[in-house]
């Protein structure tokens, strides 16, 4: 098929013309959107296309569902009849944690996959597309897998575990805002880990999971912070993940037990023992999320520059 200059432009400039201005390749926003959605699309193909849809569905939901069931059984044994009150607590925490683990690992694994396995990172980097936009697109695809797990865990929580979700009682504005800022924070933390993985060897595959494992303890997802020593509770309070999960809990079930505050918690020694309200959780989420996002942007920019200086963008450790 013959392609003419009139029908195809190469990056928004006249094909074949040498010299002069290389052009800007159309609008900047248009270019960003195109690169982002292309990455989402390619990322989804890579996430979901390695097996048949049924097997992929099972893979996507088996982990969070089994995790929720294990925890519920544990709670039933440990807490006995009182466990019924903790089921919503555990189901919401586990459901949202599915987004955290997939979201945090998505960007870092994209870096490692593209650099070491597919050997494509250098070609993406030297294209005009915004590097961070391409990475975020790839991360969104993985976040989609996590979102499927979240939804299915909540549905199973309602249908199987009898979690009393009442759509009429859900504080939708809080839930929407908490989801928006919470996911932004997850992506920011993912960017931070991607920045670290850009500097390290292939063994850093496990870094995102290690980070998620540590954060799991201090975020109040399943274990209330009150069971942890005060210094560790402080760690939980300065990360946005705990505030996100707490805000989502308040939105779903205003009367659910608190994961980060209440009697005996470190937060209680600051605020006098009150369980933080949904608004307070949102405010704390916005502040800690903003700090995390800013830090991630700075660190990622620094990391890319350092990788370019040290020749790490096409590093293949082969291990």
């Amino acid at each position: 098929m013959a392609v003419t200059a009139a029908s195809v432009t190469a990056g928004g400039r006249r094909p074949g013309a040498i010299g002069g201005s290389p052009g800007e390749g159309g609008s900047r926003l248009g270019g960003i959107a195109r690169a982002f959605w292309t990455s989402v699309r390619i990322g989804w193909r890579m996430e979901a296309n390695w097996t048949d849809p049924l097997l992929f569905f099972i893979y996507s939901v088996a982990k969070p569902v089994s995790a929720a069931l294990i925890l519920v059984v544990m709670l039933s044994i440990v807490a006995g009849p009182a466990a019924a009150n903790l089921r919503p607590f555990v189901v919401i925490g586990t459901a949202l944690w599915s987004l955290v683990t997939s979201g945090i690992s998505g960007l870092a694994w994209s870096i490692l996959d593209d650099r070491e396995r597919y050997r494509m990172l250098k070609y993406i980097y030297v294209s005009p597309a915004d590097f961070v936009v391409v990475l975020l697109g790839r991360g969104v695809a993985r976040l989609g897998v996590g979102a499927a797990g979240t939804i299915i865990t909540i549905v199973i929580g309602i249908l199987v575990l009898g979690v009393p979700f009442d759509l009429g009682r859900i504080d939708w504005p809080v839930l929407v805002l908490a989801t928006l800022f919470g996911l932004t924070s997850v992506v920011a933390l993912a960017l931070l880990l991607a920045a670290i993985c850009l500097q390290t060897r292939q063994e850093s595959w496990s870094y995102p999971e290690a980070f998620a494992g540590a954060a799991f303890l201090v975020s109040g997802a399943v274990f209330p912070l009150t069971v942890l020593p005060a210094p560790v509770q402080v760690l939980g309070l300065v990360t946005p993940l705990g505030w996100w999960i707490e805000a989502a809990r308040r939105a779903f079930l205003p009367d659910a037990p608190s994961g980060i505050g209440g009697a005996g918690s470190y937060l209680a020694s600051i605020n006098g023992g009150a369980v933080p309200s949904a608004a307070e959780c949102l405010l704390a989420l916005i502040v800690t999320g903003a700090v995390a996002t800013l830090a991630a942007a700075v660190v990622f920019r620094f990391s890319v520059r350092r990788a370019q200086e040290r020749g790490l963008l096409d590093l293949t450790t082969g291990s």
Partner: protein
Amino acid sequence: MSVMSQEPRVGAASEPAASPAAETPTTATPPASPAVPAGTPLALQVESVRRVYKAKSGAVTALAGVDLEVQAGELFGLLGPNGAGKTTLIKILTTLLAPTSGTAKVFGFDVEHETKRIRRIMNMVAGGEQSGYGILTVREQLWMFSQFYGMSSADGWKRSEALLDRVGLGEKKHQRVSTLSTGERQKMNLARGLMNDPWILFLDEPTLGLDVEAARSLRELMLEWRAAVPGRTILLTTHYMAEADELCDRIAIVHKGRILAIGTSAELKRRVQRESIFRVELDRLEGGVGSIAHLPGVVKATTAATDGGQAERQNVAINLVLEDDAALGAVVGALGTHGSRILGLQKSEPTLEDVFVELVGRGFEDEDEPEEHVDDPEAST
């Protein structure tokens, strides 16, 4: 109009750029081809570029002050053994790696400060690697890059398919990348490299690991692409001397991070052969080689062994060392006077390997340096 020859701006075909003699390493460049638009900046301008990598064992100098100028429209070759610094230079010019010191410009744009502009007008293809998203189809892989280069989705599909047809992968466009052979994957990579219709294409050992047929096909494609539009430039790194000899307008011989010599293939060969050497086969020679050794321009004449069967062994073969080619006329005239009939005449040419040996003191195969340098992440953290 094919995908290779979109809307040339001036003229019809690119002429190989003429080059002045380059007996020593130099930054002198040939005059721009008349077909290249006036005012077009140098395709490459590299000044005192150094690159030092940190390693546990200490600093490794990959580039030790490289100066280089390449005119728009040239097919310029970097020839050197593994570890010479060729790939490091390409990485710097494609904005993948920052130089430790020095400046480098691509069509006038600085590699450190104008990266966005450079990325619009260049592309790169590396050989000897299995790059590509195996799970995507061939056309999806190309389309993805069309989007990164700012094309509309529809145009991206059209251009992807046109390029795949051109490189001979049209029938495999729906196959997964993982099913392609090494040669096919490299053709796909070349198609990706042409996706943005670059002004300059960086080819880093593009035929490495390919069979003879695939390598020839790839070389034809790159030559066709360059010839289609005046000003299209190629920087080719290779350690295949025949490839550099065959393709490049000019060649820089690189060794241990330094450019040792720059010139056309013929100019470089003249470095090691200042005289002209011919082998002449005659039916007879009255008076022996002494009868021509005294002729003007003849440096030396010696008898050589003849090849072939009994009939050929009746003939006489002589090796002639002449001051230059012009002296050959007098020799041929004198042989005619002596009644000798010339049965064969062959000029002996040095190879680029000879040039390398002359410059370095040893051949390519004697080199055992690492192929690629990189900062050791552990050393740098």
